[in-house]
């Protein structure tokens, strides 16, 4: 028998019992639809997160810190982290200049992170200020600001502020186009046009150390710590981002030179102050961006050799990938169960078909059909159900995920600028689903096919037609 004959015969035989075939097909369609929707959600989630990380260059950057990072947790790791902290080298300009000379390094700068109070006209909010060099102007997310422009120089009295921070000041800032589109504003916020915010001056109130003498301390805290005001101009507004690059959670960003010149306490802990251990020209952390992901590995090796603590997002990536693998597996298993149920449906359908077509099997054997031919006929029918079911299932799964996407984007991601595709359909998922569906169907058809081929022709011919 040729392949074409088998396909035509399978189609004709299934069409003869079309209602039963359709019901069996629905089972396979739901099974494959559930499987593909579940797995595509897992893949989509992983893709969205890793792409976001990649687009923010998080896989080519690391942050050097005086503190050791403990990613995995557990007492063993904690001890290791503490040991590492004890050997940390000073984070100062000389380390920055050593790193700057490395061919793998593209950008390196100190992250000067200060708690500040910000006053905009009559509104005040507390936040953390961060620092950025001019070199970061072309790096995401700073190359695409919501409104305005990057700093004019490393010592300019200018600031970038986040949309979220403006909300904490009481402003819901929108571009002219968005205001025209009459988008909703959360209650309690004043709608403001972005171009009216750009150019406004804010006052940064930072805490400084007046004196470290024990006498001053005994006289009262106001003699030790004071508040100093610096006037800064808003030049740009940052977009709302889930992962906002190196200055995560820093909502007011200043040029690195300006940040250095801001009055600050100069110590991290009160105990440092008591032991007269102020930071001097040391930084709490240094941001390093490498030219490629491979370069990041080389820099990490160098830092490890120097016993310098650092945090790189890609350290957490392998842990994250493991978590995604578990998630994908759980989702896949749920889909697989539906497909297995459909598989039993196929077995049932094929066994029913054998009972009904027993005489036909006898006739085929009487006119020269071999056991193998009979097996192949039933095997192809099962495979045909699997193939058509897979096509239907993929269509159903794709359709459902599009609808889910539409609902989620409309209902829950109102403020996002971009359409978020929660599901991903790589070619291997689509191709794999077809093959998997056919495989399950063939497995389901295996027993009925063997049973059909082993029917004795005389016994089969005795069945009433």
């Amino acid at each position: 028998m040729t392949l074409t004959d088998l396909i035509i015969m399978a189609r004709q035989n299934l069409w003869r019992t079309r209602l039963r075939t359709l019901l069996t097909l629905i089972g396979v369609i739901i099974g494959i639809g559930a499987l593909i929707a579940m797995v595509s959600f897992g893949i989509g989630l992983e893709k969205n997160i890793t792409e976001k990380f990649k687009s923010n260059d998080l896989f080519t950057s690391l942050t050097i810190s005086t503190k050791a990072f403990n990613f995995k947790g557990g007492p063993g790791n904690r001890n290791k982290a503490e040991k590492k902290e004890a050997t940390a080298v000073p984070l100062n300009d000389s380390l920055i200049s050593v790193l700057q000379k490395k061919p793998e390094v593209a950008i390196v700068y100190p992250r000067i992170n200060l708690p500040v109070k910000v006053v905009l006209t009559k509104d005040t909010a507390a936040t953390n200020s961060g620092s950025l060099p001019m070199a970061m102007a072309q790096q995401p997310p700073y190359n695409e600001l919501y409104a305005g422009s990057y700093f004019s120089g490393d010592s300019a009295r200018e600031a970038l502020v986040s949309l979220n921070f403006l909300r904490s000041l009481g402003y819901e800032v929108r571009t002219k186009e968005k205001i025209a589109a009459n988008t909703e504003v959360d209650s309690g916020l004043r709608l403001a046009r972005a171009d009216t915010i750009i150019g406004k001056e804010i006052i940064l109130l930072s805490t400084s150390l007046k004196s470290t003498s024990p006498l001053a301390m005994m006289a009262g805290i106001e003699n030790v710590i004071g508040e100093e005001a610096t006037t800064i101009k808003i030049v740009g507004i940052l977009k709302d981002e889930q992962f906002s690059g190196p200055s995560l959670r820093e909502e007011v960003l200043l040029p690195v030179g300006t940040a250095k010149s801001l009055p600050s306490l100069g110590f991290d802990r009160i105990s440092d102050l008591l032991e007269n251990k102020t930071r001097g020209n040391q930084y709490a952390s240094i941001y390093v961006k490498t030219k490629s992901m491979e370069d990041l590995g080389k820099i990490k090796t160098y830092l490890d050799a120097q016993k310098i603590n650092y945090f790189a997002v890609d350290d957490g990536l392998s842990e994250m990938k493991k978590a995604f693998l578990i998630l994908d597996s759980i989702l896949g298993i749920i889909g697989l169960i539906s497909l297995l149920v459909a598989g039993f449906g196929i077995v049932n359908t094929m066994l029913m078909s054998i009972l009904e077509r027993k005489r036909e099997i006898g006739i085929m054997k009487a006119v020269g059909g071999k056991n193998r031919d009979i097996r192949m006929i039933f095997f192809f029918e099962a495979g045909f159900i699997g193939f058509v079911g897979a096509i239907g299932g993929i269509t159903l799964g794709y359709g459902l995920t599009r609808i889910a996407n539409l609902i989620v984007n409309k209902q829950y991601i109102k403020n996002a600028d971009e359409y978020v595709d929660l599901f991903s359909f790589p070619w291997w998922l689509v191709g794999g689903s077809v093959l998997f569906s056919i495989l399950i169907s063939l497995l389901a058809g295996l027993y009925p096919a063997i049973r059909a081929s082993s029917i004795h022709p005389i016994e089969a011919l005795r069945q009433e037609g």
Partner: protein
Amino acid sequence: MIELIAVNKTYTKGEHKIIASNNIHCRINKGEFVAIVGKSGSGKSTLLNLLAGLDTATSGQILFNGADISAFTPNQYAQHRLNNIGIIFQSFNLIFSKTALENVMMPLIFAGIPKAERTKKARAVLTQVGLEQRMQHKANELSGGEAQRVAIARALVNEPEVLLADEPTGNLDSATTEEILDILLSLKAKGKTIIMITHDREIAEKVADRILTIKDGVLSE
């Protein structure tokens, strides 16, 4: 051409043994029209099944053109039927959901003949049995005589040397019986070896060169 040597076939039903073929010796020559006559339950259909390879003998030898086929595997029997034997059944044994043409093409599908060639062959043989106008009709739309002619066409389409006919006129009226017998005689005239099973001695006498009688599984001239 076909030789049966001490062929026995015994069925066991519980504790009872039924002897369907009892020490059968017989020789059928090429081009001969042999009728095997016997009453219901005499073992004639069992004998036909053994000759067709649809069933296997308990003991003895069945030689086809000198080759012993009694130890064939099911697949070898299938190949033997495909190449050498055409079977015509009393109840036609057509697949009702298929057309006359599709039923006739069935053996050619198993023989792996390409579609164009098998259509041509099936059309030719259906024309030969006078059904050129009914080729595209479903088997369940045909009369008894037409259905049996389709069955004959199906038996002939692979050009086998031997035709085995099991009560080919058993379900037909007298006029149609005459038509079917005429077809069988014309096939005999073309050199086919025909073995016909019947309970009707009159029919056997009308068409057969030789009549064998079977009673309680014992075959005699």
